[in-house]
């Protein structure tokens, strides 16, 4: 690899060989690339190594160094963020433009070199500003707040007069709240399907064999009672003691006792 990294001559002067501090093991190289905050930071480092102002940037030389760098990283299979590759593309573009003769139409376009210089300058300012921030004395590190025990506070807080209506009002709100939290204890009702079967059968037989389905249910029975009644009806039906009859679709359903009047089946 070192063959690719021969010393370059710029303006007749030997400028830079591939950074000497890169001839270190790959793990260390990984650490090295991680030192940079991104492509701008790496680029700035390369420029600064030449000890020149960003304005005097030698695009061709810097591009070569930058791309050598990226190639080295890739050869060592170090994952580089996409931003590094994008910067390599930008540098190559600038370099190739500089090789071409300038035409008047180029002047009107944004010069990518100018743009790059502007970004490098701005980034350098920010970098230095960050360094300045780091040096400013700050709490927890350079300055500490005091930890003073406060005196015992012996204050007479005037007790307000409490009026009776306030108490009553408070009490009523307690009651209201209590209502919301009232518990409903549910107890098992001793409802037996067998009992209900007997009472239904009695009713059906009493009413000359026919009774409206709905009349077999009592609203007071509650949900559970209604369910028990229904189960009782099903059971009676299964045992062949009653029969459901309906004149037509959606008509009222009637219940009749089967053995009471079997031959009188005009509903069927």
């Amino acid at each position, binding site marked *: 690899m070192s063959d690719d990294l021969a010393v370059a001559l710029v303006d007749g002067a030997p400028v830079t060989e591939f950074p000497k501090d890169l001839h270190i093991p790959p793990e260390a190289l990984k650490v090295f690339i991680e*030192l940079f905050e991104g492509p701008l930071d790496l680029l700035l480092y390369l420029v600064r190594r030449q000890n020149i102002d960003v304005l005097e940037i030698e695009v061709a030389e810097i591009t070569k160094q930058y791309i050598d760098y990226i190639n080295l990283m890739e050869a060592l299979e170090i994952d580089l963020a996409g931003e590094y590759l994008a910067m390599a593309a930008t540098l190559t573009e600038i370099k190739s433009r500089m090789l071409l003769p300038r035409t008047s139409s180029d002047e009107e376009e944004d010069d990518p070199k100018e743009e790059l210089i502007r970004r490098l300058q701005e980034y350098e300012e920010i970098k230095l500003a*960050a360094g300045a921030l780091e040096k400013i004395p700050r709490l927890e590190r350079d300055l500490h707040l*005091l930890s003073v025990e406060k005196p015992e506070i012996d204050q007479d807080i005037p007790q307000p007069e409490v009026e009776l209506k306030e108490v009553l009002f408070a009490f009523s709100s307690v009651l209201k709240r209590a209502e919301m939290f009232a518990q409903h204890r549910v107890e098992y009702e001793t409802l037996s399907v067998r009992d209900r079967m007997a009472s239904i059968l009695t009713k059906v037989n009493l009413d000359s064999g026919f009774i409206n389905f709905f009349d077999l249910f009592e609203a007071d029975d509650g949900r559970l009672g209604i369910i028990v009644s229904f189960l009782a009806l099903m059971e009676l039906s299964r045992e062949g003691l009653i029969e459901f009859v309906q004149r037509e679709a959606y008509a009222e359903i009637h219940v009749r006792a089967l053995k009471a009047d079997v031959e009188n089946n005009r509903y069927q």
Partner: protein
Amino acid sequence: MIDQEKIIGIVEAVLLAAESPMEVKELVELFNSEELDKDTAAKTIRDALEVIGSEYDRRSIELKRVASGYRFQVKQDYSEWVGRMLKDRPPRYTRALLETLAIVVYKQPVTRGDIEELRGVSVSQNIMRTLLERGWIKTVGQKEVPGRPALYATTKEFLDYFDLRNLNDLPEISEIQELVVKEIQEGNDEVSREVAVNIDVEDNEEGGQLSEDILDTDNTSSNVVSLPLSNG
């Protein structure tokens, strides 16, 4: 009316006991009209603050005016020993976080996109979260561009933390530019040396997934973090 001597004592006592900096106005409000002449109250308090401040000149604590008001603090000269006494090491912040903060400080109000443009890399969510959680930056609005990104600016808490009264206390960009020139004149030895030091102490925060990326709590290294190019 309470005499000046007593007022000095009261102001000192209150500031010693206060949990956060206090403005002159807040100090004035502690007195009723029988204790302090309301017309001259602000001046009386300011005079008292001045007396207190000068009385601590020779001691290890100082009365400092920061963005949110006056507060007592331990002088910087003693931070080393106070730091040894305290069990928690102070949080250290990575370059990525400081650069992000610097962008908000100098370019505010800025969007996340502006920060990424300036740094040339994506900003990790952790950094923004840390800055917001520390209360150093806040959203001050939304930029009227597609997506309406949040605009960030620094807060009084930021100034308080960095012992500043206002943003003008910070070096201006022009001063920073002078630093750049100085750096160039001083040569590049500095750069490689600083990079070498930083190999020991800096973490990578490019990906920014780990909280250690931001709070560098490693205290094994005795190297003080010194940022490259910041020897001014």
